[in-house]
């Protein structure tokens, strides 16, 4: 113990760590009936770390080329010790991370945590969610199996529908006219270099903003607390809230391991660009709602391609949603009600179309 104290003093003399962590010592977290929703962001963060760790491990054996990608993933799952576990945890953690991020987003909207001064916290969080979807989309192709090959083909074809720049976008995404080795190389570098660098930067900004402003208290609770100050309750971040966070992380980790062991990630068949597309091609579940919408839209709406309208609609909805904290004030006195209605509508829409697409033949 004496040595530990000496080392601590040595560090303290030079770097003043005590001052750095001082805010953590005095940090408190409000306690009310919605406090449980504060855990979702931390869970998403934990799953991101799981992704980084398992991703680094997969990189040791994965080979990004059309000749070797599928075989190397097969090698990881069948020959490398615990390789099946690492790959399945990466797969399940990715899915859970997107689910938790979406749940975190809706909880933020419904508890109105995006309001002043947290507008940029919202924007950085939304951008992180878009990055997560980019991670999912680019990572899906890497095992180079039939399903991911055709899903990537279809998705890049949809991007090609965008007026004027569509074809350029398609060629940029694919690294050529067709989905092939160049596409795999691009998606690989996107997945392991570009997106992680962007995500790490945005994540630091997001976490810093969360620390700076502290946890948001929902307006209903806030007004009640103003009326009756005696009922206002807070807990210390350390150790009380952190222990709760860790408890949630343990539960998630256990769920992750159970899912990975009981339902390991499938590999399917190696992609063959010259074989017919098999029946039942579907994207990952988090793109199913958009996928189903495009399928349901008529071929022509007022003489314009239905898909084009769909893609434009998604883009517009995404942009409006991103600008939510800035738009709410412009909606007048009932702005917050409109936002709540839009959020509930969005949840019902995404939920029902995802289920519809999942069970549709």
């Amino acid at each position, binding site marked *: 113990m004496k040595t530990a104290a000496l080392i601590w003093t040595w560090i303290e003399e030079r770097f003043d760590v005590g001052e750095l962590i001082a805010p953590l010592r005095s940090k*408190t977290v409000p*306690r009310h009936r919605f406090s449980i929703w504060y855990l979702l962001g931390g869970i998403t963060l934990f799953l991101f770390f799981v992704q980084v760790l398992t991703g680094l*491990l997969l990189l*040791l054996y994965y080979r990004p080329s059309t000749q070797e990608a599928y075989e190397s993933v097969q090698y990881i799952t069948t020959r490398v010790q615990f390789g099946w576990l*690492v790959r399945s945890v990466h797969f399940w953690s990715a899915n859970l991370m997107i689910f938790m991020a979406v749940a975190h987003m809706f909880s933020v909207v419904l508890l109105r945590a995006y309001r002043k001064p947290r507008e940029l916290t919202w924007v950085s969080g939304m951008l992180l969610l878009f990055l997560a979807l980019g991670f999912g989309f680019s990572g899906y192709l890497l095992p180079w199996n039939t399903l991911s090959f055709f899903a990537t083909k279809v998705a890049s074809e949809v991007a090609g529908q965008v007026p004027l720049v569509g074809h350029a976008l398609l060629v940029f995404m694919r690294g050529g006219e067709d989905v092939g080795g160049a596409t795999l190389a691009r998606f690989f570098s996107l997945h392991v270099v570009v997106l992680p660098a962007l995500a790490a930067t945005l994540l630091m900004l997001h976490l810093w903003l969360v620390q700076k402003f502290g946890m948001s208290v929902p307006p209903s609770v806030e007004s009640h607390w103003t009326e009756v100050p005696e009922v206002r*309750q807070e*807990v210390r971040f350390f*150790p009380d809230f952190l222990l709760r966070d860790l408890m949630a992380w343990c539960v998630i980790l256990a769920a992750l391991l159970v899912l990975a062991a009981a339902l390991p990630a499938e590999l399917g068949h190696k992609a063959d660009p010259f074989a017919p597309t098999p029946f039942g091609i579907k994207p990952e579940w988090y793109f199913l709602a958009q996928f189903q919408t495009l399928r349901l839209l008529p071929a022509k709406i007022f003489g314009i391609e239905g898909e084009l309208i769909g893609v434009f609609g998604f883009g517009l909805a995404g942009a409006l949603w991103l600008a939510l904290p800035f738009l709410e004030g412009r909606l007048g006195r009932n702005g917050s009600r409109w936002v709540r209605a839009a959020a509930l509508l969005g949840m019902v829409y995404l939920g029902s179309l995802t289920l519809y697409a999942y069970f549709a033949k």
Partner: protein
Amino acid sequence: MSTIASAAPTSRGEQLIASSMPRRRALLLLMGSLVSSLGTLCYPILRYLIPPGETNSSANDALAGMVGELKPNSGKTFRFGSRPALLVRLATGEYRSMSAVCTHLGCTVQYRPETQQIWCPCHNGCYDLNGRNVGGPPPRPLPAFDVEVRGQEIYVSRKQVA
């Protein structure tokens, strides 16, 4: 610490819920669970890091070349499993074959017609035509292989241990 925490209204006037445990105990609990979970998780990760054995490095024979490809008093390297091997045609026309991986630090050796020796350029190691280390730093002879000419093809195989 909990006694301080339970002392109600703070400067901002809110109630601070008393910590259910002292900081030191919380820290120990955290450290304990962290260390034990990391220990449990490290086992599969460490096992994952060990690469599974290569299957093709243990090849037992390989096609070394074609008859007439080598002039007398010359040599060539070829692929034997995942490692290079050396095929030498002596001045007498006889074929010899051995591993081309120098036993000193693993460079690839070559046949030198002018000295009629096998030579490693990295540290000037010399082997005779049976693969015996005869000069320089190499500590052991090169493992020799059996050579068999089948029709026009020259096959090389590991020496059968009798």
